[in-house]
């Protein structure tokens, strides 16, 4: 397994090996699926759309419907305008979506297709039926990562839909970040337990966790509606979770409609969830019900009951920046030591944030943005860890180095659960604890000698 990875680290400036990110459009496609009755559309070569649909399908085991402009060489030379017009005509005639959410690709970005103009022209020419909306976002694959694409499409939802129609309503916008349908569902549940009216966008719950009912709904019942998106302009405030995935949309909403925002970390782990609940309290003056405080207490209960198995354990962590910031803090709260942290997404602010969180507990943390799993593996070879946490690609490193492994983040292509059980909120903290303790104890059970094989742990 990964036998050719040497321990010795040679500095690389050009070659990416085993990336810890992918390109923007897939994030935009995922975000688009969080709009009700929306058909995502990839403006570029067919392969982009095929790859993104395939990868999202592998992660969710659900239909991922999306269309493409099917560029050929002609479009690459003369521009993809004609392809987009044909695509819109076909999509609205055959698939009747409420919204078509167009994102670009490196091809259409390099050509320089002007999407707003193309869309306006299509509308003028009657290609976009009355009452239907075509939105777009630019997702050049050579900038940022899949998280950037998610962020860009979420911001486009604000640009195209949010309206100021009057005074602020009794409404809070929640931008949940690049998280799972289960997480969006949990965030909505928490908001409703707190007794607040909220619009969560994007919202892929009831889209990418749809029930098996023996009939296909091209547009499942979930997703934020266009009317709800419009109303975000009249909200009293926005809670944006995750700097990388959600800040831009919140800032745009303030700029356009004057809705004040608060930028929070993803509510993963106990401290970040505490801050989320506290922010809702501060914003609305509403006290959380006892059920939420009890849930929190159950998390702390597990933390105190099982601390001997977690305390001081060294962890290697990789994935998307918003997830890693909250997870690193959670690990710190558990007395664990996240010693190696890698994200593929570029952004020095990520490194600074991680260092700030870990300055007392892991002052010499190895942290790098715009890095890859090859480097992480080499770090681990040079300084071994007790636990690896990250997306599915971590399983190769875990096997090569024989390290217990907890799947966390996007994508997870080889297990189920992420779409059904949240990692956000106190419920999510419990699930993460169960997984980490389980992985560490399974390893202990495997390695203990017969006479030390424990019945009770």
């Amino acid at each position, binding site marked *: 397994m990964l036998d050719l990875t040497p321990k010795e680290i040679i500095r690389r400036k050009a070659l990416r090996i085993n990336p810890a990110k992918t*390109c923007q459009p897939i994030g935009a496609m995922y975000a688009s699926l969080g709009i009700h009755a929306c058909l995502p559309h990839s403006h570029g070569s067919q392969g*982009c759309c095929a*790859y993104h649909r395939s990868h999202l399908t592998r992660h969710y085991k659900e239909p991922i419907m999306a269309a*493409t402009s099917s560029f050929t060489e002609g479009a690459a030379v003369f521009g993809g305008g004609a392809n987009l017009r044909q*695509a819109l*005509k076909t999509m609205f005639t055959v698939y009747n979506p409420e919204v078509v959410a167009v994102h670009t690709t490196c091809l259409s970005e390099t050509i320089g297709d002007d999407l707003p103009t193309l869309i306006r022209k299509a509308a003028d020419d009657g290609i976009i039926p009355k009452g239907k909306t075509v939105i777009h976002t630019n997702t050049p694959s*050579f900038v940022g990562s899949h998280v950037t694409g998610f962020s860009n499409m979420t911001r486009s939802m604000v640009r195209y839909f949010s309206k100021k129609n009057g005074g602020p309503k009794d409404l809070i916008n929640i931008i949940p970040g690049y998280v799972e349908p289960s997480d969006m569902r949990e965030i909505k549940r928490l908001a409703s337990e707190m007794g607040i009216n909220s619009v969560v966008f994007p919202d892929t719950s009831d889209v990418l966790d749809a029930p098996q009912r023996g009939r*296909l709904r091209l547009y499942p019942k979930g997703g934020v509606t266009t009317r709800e998106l419009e109303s975000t302009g009249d909200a009293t405030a926005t809670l944006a979770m995750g700097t990388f995935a959600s800040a831009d949309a919140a800032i745009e909403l303030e700029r356009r409609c004057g809705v004040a925002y608060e930028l929070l970390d993803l509510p993963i782990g106990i401290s970040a969830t505490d801050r989320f609940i506290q922010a809702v309290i501060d914003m609305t003056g509403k006290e959380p019900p006892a059920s939420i405080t009890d849930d929190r207490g159950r998390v702390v209960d597990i933390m105190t009951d099982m601390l001997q198995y977690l305390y001081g354990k060294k962890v290697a962590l990789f994935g998307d920046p918003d997830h890693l910031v909250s997870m690193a803090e959670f690990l710190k709260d558990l007395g664990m030591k996240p010693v190696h942290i890698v994200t593929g997404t570029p952004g020095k602010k990520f490194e600074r944030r991680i260092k700030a969180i870990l300055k007392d507990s892991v002052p010499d943390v190895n942290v790098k943005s715009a890095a890859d799993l090859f480097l992480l593996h080499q770090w681990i070879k040079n300084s071994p860890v007790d636990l690896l946490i990250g997306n599915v690609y971590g399983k190769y490193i875990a096997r090569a180095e024989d390290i217990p492994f907890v799947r966390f983040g996007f994508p997870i292509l080889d297990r189920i659960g992420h779409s059904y059980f949240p990692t956000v909120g106190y419920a999510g903290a419990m699930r993460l604890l169960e997984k980490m303790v389980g992985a560490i104890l399974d390893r202990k059970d495997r390695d203990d000698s017969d006479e030390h094989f424990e019945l009770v742990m």
Partner: protein
Amino acid sequence: MSEQALSNISRINPEDLLEEIVRSYPTKVARKRRNHMLVRNPEEPQHIQANVRTVPGIITQRGCCYAGCKGVVIGPIVDMVHIVHGPIGCSYYAWMTRRNLGKAREDGQNYLQYCFSTDMQEENIIFGGEKKLMAAIEEAYEIFHPKAISIHATCPVGLIGDDIQHVARMMSEKLGIDIIAFNCEGYRGVSQSAGHHIANNGLFEKVVGKDDVEQEGFSVNCLGEYNIGGDAWEIERVLERCGIKIVSTFSGNASYDEMRHAHMANLNLVQCHRSINYMAEMMETAYGIPWIKVNFIGVKAMSKSLRKIAEFFEDPALSERVEKVIAEEEERALKGIEPFRERLKGKSAFLFVGGSRAHHYQDLFRDLGMKTVVAGYEFGHRDDYEGRQVLPNLKLDADSKNIPEIEVQPDPERYRPRKPPEVLEELKKKGLIDSYQGMLPDMEKGSIVVDDISHFELERLIETLKPDIVCSGIKDKYVIQKMGVPSKQLHSYDYSGPYAGYKGAVNFAREIDMLVNSPAWSMITAPWEKAPLLKAVPNKV
């Protein structure tokens, strides 16, 4: 649900169904799409439109040229470093997702678990990416010391004018290893198929024929076999039992070294005609190696293919050995299939895969007593449907013209006819060598063929015909299953396999039975939805 599709297809008029389906399209689209569909009628010559542009927005299964080149043909070569020149996504998505299995040879070189990319950034798009590509090659060499490197272009590379061929030549000279560049930008051609062709060209020009290692005995190359789920290993097992030696496989579990002496084999076996027929043709012209179309999918098809190979070599001892192996293997396989066949016979299947599998798996379904009622390729050409006799009449359109055809001449030193010309002519006439009849002749009257199927067409066909199983890819799998119909992925084999050869057929039978007859399907409707809702209200008195 059993046999429902069969009765449905005989009850309805399939021509009317196709007409009704295309009526939902805009007029021009309807006209175009109708030419990609036909109802099989063996009594008349039939033509189908294929290998042309997909309608934008129609929701297609198709991918791109890069996917066909790097993803399909070159990526599976085990001991080369494959560097993708472009933004990160293209390399990322082709990283271990296709299940082309492979093992390191004695030198320990296996790069299949690695993903290499130049991860182009905005400044590379603006100022050009050649320097970054050169640096990436140098870094790869410094870390791994591979014997060869491939470079694959993604969409923006062609547009910004990076000359990857030049970079390859320069770096090859500098480092003293083979570096092969493929201009497989995603927008070339109309599907993955363009990428196959480009990959074939590169391998033929730069790899094949470079190392003359004498091959003894009945030596063959296995072309168009990608070792999904271990297929190539099962094929190899059976061929070895027969005394037939595989020199190189193109390209499942392939090694660069073995490909270099592939031209020393005496016969090419073509499994996936679509992706590799170019190689077979070019090797025949340059080195005099004839090719045979085989199908290793299905018990009877496997035996038939072995007999064809034996017939070619005209060696009584070989023929005897082949018959002995067939007798033993068939008996075991048919016995293995029997319990599943009992539960599957009479059921119906749809097949929408690739450029060959939609044909190959019809044989395997026949072994199971099942019938393929609708089939079509994602990126096949007309010859894959109608047979190679249509080739001289095919007009090259603008999209095909930009894929280079290489002029091949007999190699002055290495051209060696494997049989006297008159014998070869005879074998050609018999259809044993250099011949492929396509899918259509194997499809029964009244069955439906749809090329480059759209989501809409797939949904309507399933709704109307209610097949027992639909074989397709990952993008369709859960779409189909949400309709209450089981779906088998025939690209990735649902992370199982092998399905080729005798053992593979038994695996396949077991899994189709599992999919079709699983109790899970009977749980879709909740008990309270089945029973009449209004029962007497409990007595409140």
